């Protein structure tokens, strides 16, 4: 389902059907991106809602200098990063909502319980490592790997050059390997 130019015009006119379509097109995508930044269900819901409020509030100022998709993701990422900074300033210890509580079990294609368990443990280590990445690296990696965005699209969302995004993703992967290695040493594997 795509959000067309007509839908954008209808959204500017506060058409309820256009708003409904906006939610249908983007609710799960934005929630996903926000969750990977915050890794907490309640905060992910709060920020996702804030993102939609902001989109509907600011749509009249959207001048189509970037694509609508880019603009929407940019709002969600910026709000997520703001929330992370707020949590750090407030020295708030945010309890992580484990991803398995949020995954649709029908998406889980592992049948072998042992392999599934190992896969879950590996995934947990990876998610913890992603969560501990610096903000920009995290955003670049999540948009690229989770949402399948091209580097040029990620660059537009984060307002960076494509080269800068390439560098961010490369540094993110290097940092992930270091963190995973540390974690494995802790687990004495």
């Amino acid at each position, binding site marked *: 389902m795509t959000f067309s130019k007509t839908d954008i015009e209808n959204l500017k006119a506060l058409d*309820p059907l256009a*708003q409904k379509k906006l939610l249908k097109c983007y609710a799960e995508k934005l929630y996903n991106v926000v969750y990977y930044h915050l890794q907490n269900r309640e905060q*992910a819901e709060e920020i*996702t809602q804030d993102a939609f409020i902001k989109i509907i509030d600011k749509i009249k100022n959207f001048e189509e200098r970037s694509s609508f998709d880019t603009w929407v993701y940019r709002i969600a990422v910026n709000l997520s990063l703001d929330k992370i900074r707020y949590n750090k300033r407030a020295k708030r210890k945010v309890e992580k909502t484990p991803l398995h509580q*949020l995954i649709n079990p029908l998406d889980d294609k592992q049948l072998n319980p042992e392999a599934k368990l190992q*896969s879950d443990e590996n995934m947990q280590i990876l998610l913890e490592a992603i969560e501990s990445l610096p903000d920009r690296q995290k955003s670049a990696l999540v948009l690229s790997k989770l949402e399948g965005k091209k580097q040029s699209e990620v660059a537009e969302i984060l307002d960076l050059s494509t080269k800068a995004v390439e560098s961010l993703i490369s540094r993110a*992967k290097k940092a992930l*390997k270091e963190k995973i*290695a540390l974690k494995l040493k802790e687990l004495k*594997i």
Partner: protein
Amino acid sequence: MKEEDWINQIMDGLDHLPKAKPSPEFLSSLESTFSKPKVISLNKNQRNSFLWFAAASVVILFLINFNVVQSEFQSMNNAAAEEIISDYGLDETSNYYNLEYYEQN
């Protein structure tokens, strides 16, 4: 398994990161948030004009009310004064000092 292989196995997970799904309750609350009747928001100029109009209306109503109250008070005072005048025989027709009498006498 060598540590490097283990790390690579974990890093492979980047290519199939699981999607976090929002709960149905959250999605329906999100929908209901945006299906509420919209409050028409005024822009700054419209808002300022509206405020001036409202303030002016209040002042005009106050002045009208003040006039009505004042004239009511006035007429009450007049009515009370007339009562006193008639009670004490002080109306224009009565000759309190009875000058003619004294002049005659």
